[in-house]
């Protein structure tokens, strides 16, 4: 049973450099298998920096997160939090 969520991206550079790195790191910290994509596009592995940055997600875009596994909800919470935090408030 997978859970999913759609989130609007807040960081001004979208999913690039620092927010993308934080996002991928968080995805890999969870056991759940997480995929990410645009609402009507293909999903890619949330734990791959190349896959995540190649989505070209910009500020204000919606992204769809789909998680499958024991800590799926926790994983989605963590990833949604990164996507909705302005870049300068991300922990260094």
């Amino acid at each position, binding site marked *: 049973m997978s859970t999913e969520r759609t989130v609007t991206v807040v960081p001004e*550079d979208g999913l690039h450099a620092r927010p993308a790195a934080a996002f991928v790191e968080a995805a890999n910290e969870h056991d759940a298998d997480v995929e990410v994509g645009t609402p009507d596009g293909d999903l890619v592995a949330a734990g791959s920096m190349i896959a995540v940055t190649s989505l070209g997600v910009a500020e204000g875009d919606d992204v769809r997160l789909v998680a499958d596994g024991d800590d799926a909800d926790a994983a989605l919470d963590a990833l949604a939090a990164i996507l909705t935090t302005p870049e300068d408030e991300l922990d260094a």
Partner: protein
Amino acid sequence: MSTERQVLSGTGATPRAGVGTVVWYDPETELPDLPADGVDEAAERERFEAARETAEAELERERERTAERVGEAEAAVFDAHVQFVNDPTIADAVEAAIDDGLPAPNAVHEAFADHIEQFEGMDGRMAERADDLRDVRDRLVRILTDGDRVDLAALPEGAVVLAERLTPSDTAQLNPERVAGFATATGGRTSHAAIFARSLALPAVVGVGDALLDVPDDADVLVDGDAGELVVNPTDEEREAARTEETAEVRPDPISTADGKAIEVAANVGQHAEVEPAVERGADGIGLYRTEFLFLDRESPPDEDEQFETIVEALDAFPEGRVVVRTLDVGGDKGVPYLDLPEEENPFLGERGIRRSLGPDADLFETQLRALLRAAAAGDGDLAVMFPLVATVEELAAALERVDEVAADLEAEGVDYARPELGVMIETPSAAFVADEFAERVDFLSIGTNDLAQYVMAAARENDRVADLHDPLHPGVLRAIHHTVQAGHEGDAWVGMCGEMAGDPEVTELLVGLGLDELSMSAVTIPDVKANVETTDTDAAADLAADARAADTRTKVLDRIHRS
């Protein structure tokens, strides 16, 4: 080796010069030949794993060093690199290539190839990812081949690094205490390498082109970041001039002259990425925030919220200081594709600056003023707004009226706003002559010496044939500056200067003597200018300024400055 003097032109990244010996840097490492008897797959996989760990450890060290030297925001690029090193897509591709019989370094090279090509084909931010991937690939290949890449962090004293291009991680390795500068074949003023160079106050010239590739290792060169030139085999005089450039310590707090007159020393910012380096070099605030960069390299103008947020960020960077934002200044030599600027016979005497804001760009002007008035209420620091190329009182009155209208609109809409300080940029002779009229109507005047010198001397800034005439030290320009300062003070306006002249440490005493309250410059020279202000005595400076104004030639002005 030829010892003939040769000058290569590029784009200056930092207004500094350095002289030294060429060390060529080429990060590409040669791949090993394929072994005839095949590879030990398990051993190659282990080597790849070990290389990833080494790369991650290197990146952590470089991240720390960059955060310390350049800034936290710039260091973030290394977080991205760590994630690229550990990317499962890459790992799968590398292992598949090893299973196909490639040694680990060749497998790494192949695994990155498609992704690099894919990112290269995209525009803007995505093309930067291609650079990141190349950087990560070269790091892994170097580790796997025990590559003898030049260790940029351990260069000999006085080295000048030449490279086709330098990545952010390359540039952050350079120790400004030892390295004399760098020059690259590619890149522009806003490339990562150029921005890092400015943060590090390192002499640098970028975008020299293929001619750079012919400069041999061990050649003597002068990196002149001020003129945007790389001089091969410089003269003895040039070497001496570059060597005697000294840098002062950073003074983070506001300063005053030896006898106690407070002088604000602020930064000119033409790119958002220059805000942080300005803080780090001890700027009291921003004296010229050029909003043009928000409008360039895009298909349509930025909206109100985007401008609002960028300005608030600049204000938050100087909670105790002031940020002077110049409204959109296009026309002349500054084009913006979607603004449809007219072809003009004399663009510098044509429709530019406030003339466009009150004419064809009235809508953009209104949007910008809305963003500014909202930012004045939201940001930590104090906002000041100035209008460029104002020549008449009517233009100023019209601009001030627009501010009133926008304030009334925001009030009616119930939107939070505040009235910033308002000012005029003094760039035209007419503005200098009627500075008293302006001062009665605004809070401040800021002298743009580049354009003021151009118009007072009737000598175009970019025309080499009249370059000698385009000099703010001509008595004619000095008298215009002096008149502006006097008129400003009589009208209770503070008067600043935001042209190149303000950042020249040689003339700090003269500028204090002319009575300026604020000096704004490229962040790099802020420590030097602050140091000079602190040793200046205002009475002696006033004498110097009076003599310089009274001189009949530029030569006599220079003689007087050098005598003091």
